[in-house]
């Protein structure tokens, strides 16, 4: 193969003028991507482009060694059924309880919600209420520029595909971005729920923000171990 047109991945110019915490070195991190169904490869690529290692997880028992977990978009009905089937619920619950960050995008956000309108919750971890297909069928899917202060001043392109909408948040949940009347990006401690698809754009800021949380978790872990040793 000739080298003249080999694709090269360059950092997005948009990344250059955001806060320092989005530009950290993520090379020591391993991020799990729940690979049951949906946009798995895209999230894996984003993690790798941020400098981390991605682990596509399709079987139980592999989540112990990851520093964070991404639950990608896909068909929420299907993913919910499958995660039940393959015993992921407990593992994800434990991972979140340990303080490791979890990012749920689109269907992944539905999986994490404590209240899902019109159906039973799937892995109720986040104190949010979510409505599936809130914008209607596929022909209503859209992209739009969002203002997300934690990601910097540049607008962020939100790709909404048969997207859900967070209609209510409980105590301890921060709203990181909204669109119209609804919430499209929320954080509760180590958990992130995103209604759109950050993995379908070239903009890596949201993944960097998430990986920054994983790095923080790592540091706190190291420090608590140190203090244990000292005492």
């Amino acid at each position: 193969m000739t080298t003249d047109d080999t694709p090269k991945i360059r950092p997005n110019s948009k990344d250059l003028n955001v806060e320092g915490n989005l530009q950290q070195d993520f090379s020591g991190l391993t991020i799990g991507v729940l690979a049951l169904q949906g946009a798995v490869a895209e999230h894996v690529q984003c993690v790798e482009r941020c400098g981390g290692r991605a682990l596509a997880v399709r079987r139980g028992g592999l989540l112990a060694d990851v520093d964070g977990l991404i639950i990608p978009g896909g068909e929420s009905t299907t993913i919910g059924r499958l995660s039940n089937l393959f015993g992921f619920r407990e593992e994800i619950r434990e991972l979140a309880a340990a303080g490791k960050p979890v990012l749920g995008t689109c269907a992944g956000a539905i999986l994490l919600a404590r209240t899902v309108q019109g159906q039973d919750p799937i892995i109720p971890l986040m104190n949010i209420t979510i409505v599936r297909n809130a914008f209607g069928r596929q022909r209503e899917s859209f992209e739009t520029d969002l203002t997300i202060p934690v990601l910097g001043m540049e607008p962020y392109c939100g790709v909404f595909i048969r997207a859900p909408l967070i209609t209510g948040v409980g105590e301890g949940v921060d709203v990181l971005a909204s669109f119209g009347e609804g919430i499209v990006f929320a954080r509760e401690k180590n958990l992130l729920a995103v209604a759109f698809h950050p993995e379908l754009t070239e903009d890596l800021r949201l993944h960097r923000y998430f990986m920054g949380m994983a790095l923080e978790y790592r540091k706190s872990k190291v420090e608590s171990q140190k203090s244990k040793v000292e005492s």
Partner: protein
Amino acid sequence: MVDRGTFRVKKGMAEMQKGGVIMDVTNPEQARIAESAGAVAVMALERVPADIRAVGGVARMADPEMILSIMEAVTIPVMAKCRIGHFAEAQVLEALAVDYIDESEVLTPADEKYHINKHQFTVPFVCGARDLGEALRRIGEGAAMIRTKGEPGTGNVVEAVRHLRVVMEQIRAVLNAPAEELMTLSKQFGAPYELILEVRKLGRLPVVNFAAGGIATPADAALMMLLGADGVFVGSGIFKSADPLKRAKAIVEATLHYDNPEVVARVSRGLGEAMPGIDMAVLTDADRMQIRGV
């Protein structure tokens, strides 16, 4: 500003289906069975391909009444087929708000020369292809998803394998050729040059590619995934079999765990009769749906 129907949104919809199974259904009850089995979408049609073969005559877009009743029955996306080149049927399907339109050779073509200009629609399209050129021509016309054609309604996976093999082989040819040979490859394949460059840059088709046409067993589904498909369509294979729910679940699991033979073995046990199959040798050219609209 809100942009609907951008290519990213259309293509992204197909990305969300990856690793999944899309099942042909002909009524709300079958749609519910498909959904509970874990299908990522259903294809609403009047008859499954095996019955279209049996009945003969002209196969058209399904009755909107039936499509709407299926859309009401399930929360997963609903796809529907229009005839090749029949953009009025496609407009009807868009007006019904189906989630994806399949411009399909399973129905009798309405235009033997031209396909639909799919860029004009807000709803995304999936189209069939038997080789890289056909796939890239459809993408050039605006298709946001490709399915290798296979031979629908036969329960025989041989054509599905042939078409996916050809697509993969030709992608490898594009990746391995020196830059000066690409224009000639584009001419040979009958593919738009810009899209050949795109394939070379990405190392794969620019859109999601599912396998279709003859998949009848969990092992068939696993085979197509191992050959490089992003997911599978199962048409007649489920509701023409002895135990549709059990088979549908088994094919979903086999598609997910395609690289784990133990799972495929476990789910393949005791499924009952598969659909009756047809040997390709008995099909005349007139019986071959795959050669329509190329």
